[in-house]
């Protein structure tokens, strides 16, 4: 029943997309399409939430006579897909709500309106798919529709290149997934998930499948070093689509990984639990360091997505490590941490992108060097963005902290693992995670501080006005969810119970009966956290302090020019700039990791022209992996190019020799 309803939702989204294609010239088209998307995703959200809360009602595979005639297409909803459907439709509904206002600024609605619902439909279809063919078809549909959205503003500098790179990486990832499913299907060609589950592959094969799944899903999610397209493509799309791509589509990639590795692949081997967390830890640190060095607000957010994907993969990898050693309770903890972070990240990343979009639509700027002071002009956006920044920096009492805390708790269970490599590696990954969390704090101080605080750095920032009601509503709902998920995490953990149970065979103890809604992953004496009490205490002591101050202290306030150590300068150019903010951290980490190179060009003495500081950074994965690959491809293409200019006799020789070779192969084969 559930799957059927959700399929109707997908169909309705596709129909909305078609309507958008036909009607995009009408004045109300934008509002109509987004309102329809909002309604449909809200319906899908309700359905999947109900499915998640009562998983017993889920049964039955729906087969439709579509696609390849001898396969058909199969759809099914289980606890895992119900959870991811929930995440996606929360993000989708909020993006539609935001776009009700934001979409009006779109210059070329014809390039966005048809694809936005199609993109949502594609993501939903990936989660509903219950056979490899449908999965891959939906996956590719999702990739292509998002590619079309990335290319919406293709005339802007850099966007075409971003789209090209995205297309390339997406095809590469799909290829890897195709091979993975090919291996899973085995010689009998069982493409149905249920059939694949029946016959787990041999150890060597499953290792190859793991690597392929890491490449396929990782390239979509943005694991280092497959992340290169992400920070180019995500910001290039219109902002509500950026939010969907960063907040939601990466989660579909996580789903793909979980579905293949946890569900279809059979029991894991212990070294998987070393590889995946290690890649996750590296991804987290590299992602946040890249983010810190950006001055473009949307690109900063996109890089921070890379970081959060890293955190999620650390949790997933730990779950693999524990599961391989049959420590189900610990595996459940790590898996819960990962899934909770999936949910949390979709909330705050969408929120932050919406904030960036609001700034973009009212100032036309993404460059933090030209923003500043917007807290005065856009107070509501600033408030929502502040909550999002605190949440993503893993600060209590918001939700980001809860999932990172759970991940740390899972890491602290690692000494019980029997393998020495894991015993050492997992705490080292913990150190990477701690580093990433601290750097994320610095990163979002920068993002918030230079966009919203200080004095305006350009006229356009001085004149900005707050955004429309719809966008504000979208941001405030998400901000409220961030707080609620932070102070009442027990309910969310309990809701995840069936998913965890299905994937790891155990689940965390029920949290909702505990006193004061504390969360206790293992035992009270070991660790516990109570977001509600922490929040309550902070509010209480802040109001106590305020009360005491207002009773006994002077309430006088005088406004004056800034003190600035006695040398105030009215020019906003004297403020710290985003580049100078990250300079210390760049010096500490960047000189090795990014080969950062600073050059100061001083004018000759007596010359009044300004001195220039130039910083050059190099992207190591790009230099080491992609540039040689591109050169190799270019070299091969150059060589193959000669084939275009053969004589007829030459072509005939080629065809003839190919035929002979094939015949020889056939002869040897028999």
């Amino acid at each position: 029943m559930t799957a059927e309803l959700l399929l109707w939702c997908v169909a309705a989204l596709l129909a909305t997309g078609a309507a958008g294609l036909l009607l995009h010239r009408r004045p109300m088209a934008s509002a109509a399409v987004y309102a329809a998307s909002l309604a449909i995703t809200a319906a899908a959200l309700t359905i999947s939430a109900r499915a998640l809360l009562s998983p017993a009602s889920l049964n039955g595979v729906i087969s439709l006579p579509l696609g390849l005639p001898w396969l058909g297409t199969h759809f099914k909803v289980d606890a895992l897909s119900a959870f991811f459907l929930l995440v996606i439709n929360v993000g989708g509904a909020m993006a539609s709500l935001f776009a009700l206002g934001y979409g009006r600024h779109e210059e070329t609605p014809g390039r966005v309106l048809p694809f936005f619902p199609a993109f949502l439909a594609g993501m939903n279809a990936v989660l509903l798919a219950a056979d490899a063919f449908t999965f891959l078809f939906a996956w590719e549909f999702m990739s292509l529709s998002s590619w079309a959205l990335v290319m919406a503003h293709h005339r802007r500098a850099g966007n075409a290149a971003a789209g090209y790179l995205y297309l390339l990486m997406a095809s590469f990832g799909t290829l890897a997934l195709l091979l993975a499913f090919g291996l899973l299907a085995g010689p009998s060609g069982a493409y149905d998930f249920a059939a694949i589950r029946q016959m787990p592959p041999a150890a060597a094969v499953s290792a190859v499948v793991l690597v392929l799944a890491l490449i396929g899903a990782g390239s979509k999610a943005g694991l280092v070093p497959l992340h290169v397209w992400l920070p180019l493509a995500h910001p290039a799309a219109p902002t509500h689509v950026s939010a969907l791509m960063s907040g939601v589509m990466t989660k579909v990639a996580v789903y793909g990984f979980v579905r293949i590795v946890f569900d279809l692949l059979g029991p894991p081997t212990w070294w998987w639990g070393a590889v995946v967390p290690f890649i996750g830890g590296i991804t987290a640190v590299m992602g946040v360091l890249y983010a810190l060095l950006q001055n473009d607000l949307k690109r900063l957010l996109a890089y921070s997505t890379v970081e959060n994907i890293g955190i999620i993969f650390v949790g997933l990898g730990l779950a693999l490590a524990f599961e391989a050693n049959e420590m189900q309770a610990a595996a459940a903890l790590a898996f819960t941490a990962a899934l909770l972070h999936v949910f949390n990240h979709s909330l705050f990343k969408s929120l932050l992108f919406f904030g960036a979009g609001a700034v973009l639509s009212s100032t036309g700027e993404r460059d933090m060097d030209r923003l500043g002071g917007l807290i005065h002009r856009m107070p509501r956006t600033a408030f929502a963005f502040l909550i999002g920044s605190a949440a993503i920096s893993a600060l209590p009492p918001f939700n980001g902290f809860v999932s990172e805390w759970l991940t740390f708790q899972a890491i602290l269970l690692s000494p019980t693992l029997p393998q020495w490599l894991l015993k050492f590696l997992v705490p080292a990954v913990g150190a990477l995670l701690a580093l990433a969390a601290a750097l994320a704090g610095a990163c979002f101080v920068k993002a918030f501080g230079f966009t919203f605080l200080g004095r305006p750095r350009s006229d356009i920032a001085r004149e900005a006005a707050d955004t429309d009601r719809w966008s504000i509503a979208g941001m405030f709902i998400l901000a409220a969810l961030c707080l609620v998920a932070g102070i009442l995490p027990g309910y969310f953990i309990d809701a995840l119970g069936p998913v965890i149970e299905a994937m790891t065979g155990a689940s965390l103890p029920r949290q909702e009966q505990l006193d004061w809604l504390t969360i206790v992953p293992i035992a009270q004496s070991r660790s516990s956290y109570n977001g509600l009490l922490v929040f309550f205490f902070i509010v209480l002591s802040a109001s106590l302090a305020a009360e005491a101050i207002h009773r006994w202290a002077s309430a006088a306030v005088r406004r004056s020019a800034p003190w600035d150590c006695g040398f105030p300068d009215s020019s906003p150019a004297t403020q710290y700039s985003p580049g100078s903010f990250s300079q210390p951290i760049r010096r500490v980490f960047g000189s090795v990791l990014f080969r950062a190179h600073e050059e100061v060009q001083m004018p000759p003495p007596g010359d009044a022209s300004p001195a220039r500081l130039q910083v050059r950074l190099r992207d190591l994965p790009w230099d080491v992996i992609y540039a040689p690959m591109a050169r190799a491809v270019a070299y091969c293409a150059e060589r193959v190019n000669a084939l275009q200019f053969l004589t007829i006799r030459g072509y005939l020789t080629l065809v003839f020799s190919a035929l002979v070779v094939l015949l020889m192969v056939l002869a040897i084969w028999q």
Partner: protein
Amino acid sequence: MMADLFVQFCEMLVVLGLAPLLAGYVRTLKARLVGRRGPPLLQPYRDLLRLIRKEVVLADSASWLFRAAPYIVFAATWVAAALVPTFATGLLFNYAADMIAIVALLASARFMLALAGLDVGTSFGGIGSSREMMIASLAEPAMVMVVFTLSLLAGSTQLSSIAAFMQGPGVGLRVSLAMALVALIMVAIAENARIPVDNPATHLELTMVHEAMIIEYSGRHLALIELASFVKLLLYISIIGCVFAPWGIAVAGQGLEAYLVGLAVYVVKLAVAGLLLALFETAIAKMRVFRYSDFLGSALMLGVLATLLLFVSRIA
């Protein structure tokens, strides 16, 4: 239950009451060590009183965040301090936050303060925030590694359980613990803006960090921030005390006498720690800004090493 609640409130009040005294004590000691008379012991209280009686001078470009930040910073720091067992374990709200959460609460306070430093839009605020976040980006993971070491050893991230474990017979002398202690002290020095990372006594110097960040604050706002930084110093000393010198801490259910003894021992611990801090600060010179990363990087490495060597210690 009621007794626990009472102890919890006492704890919060003790922390708040003693923090300025500790700061004044360290200041006086440092002055004596370099041959000055120094301010009286109670000077910080007077400073705070003076500040809250004065009017607030707000910069024209300051926003609501600038005015709200001191309250949030103070509240987060105070809540974090209230969760550290000082003279007694068995605080009522102990389970609300473990050591990781305490570190994160302090991070929340720092996040707000760094934003406040950027709010007015001056170069000093920016320089302070930027450096503060650089220091935090290394000090926080180092602190987390110390937490890892302790909680892997004690099997818990709750401070009271760790303190109970450290009082027990299963501890012994461990090189991991020694490393964790050194790393924790280094983090404490950096986080509290003490020499050699920052100088709490200077103004108008390009090398300052904390003071640069709060340079636009005045009046009651400044008082709250100062008080929060006093509390933070006390908090770190309390953590070090309750983990590495857990003697004399009263356990829940013991009588009034045990609590009084605990309080007395706690005051003695603070006095000793303050003396050591003053000695250290007098003996050492401040570092250049770009040496911080070496200092804190080695704290982080020590933390990681402590965790690694734990596995050697554990086979006993």
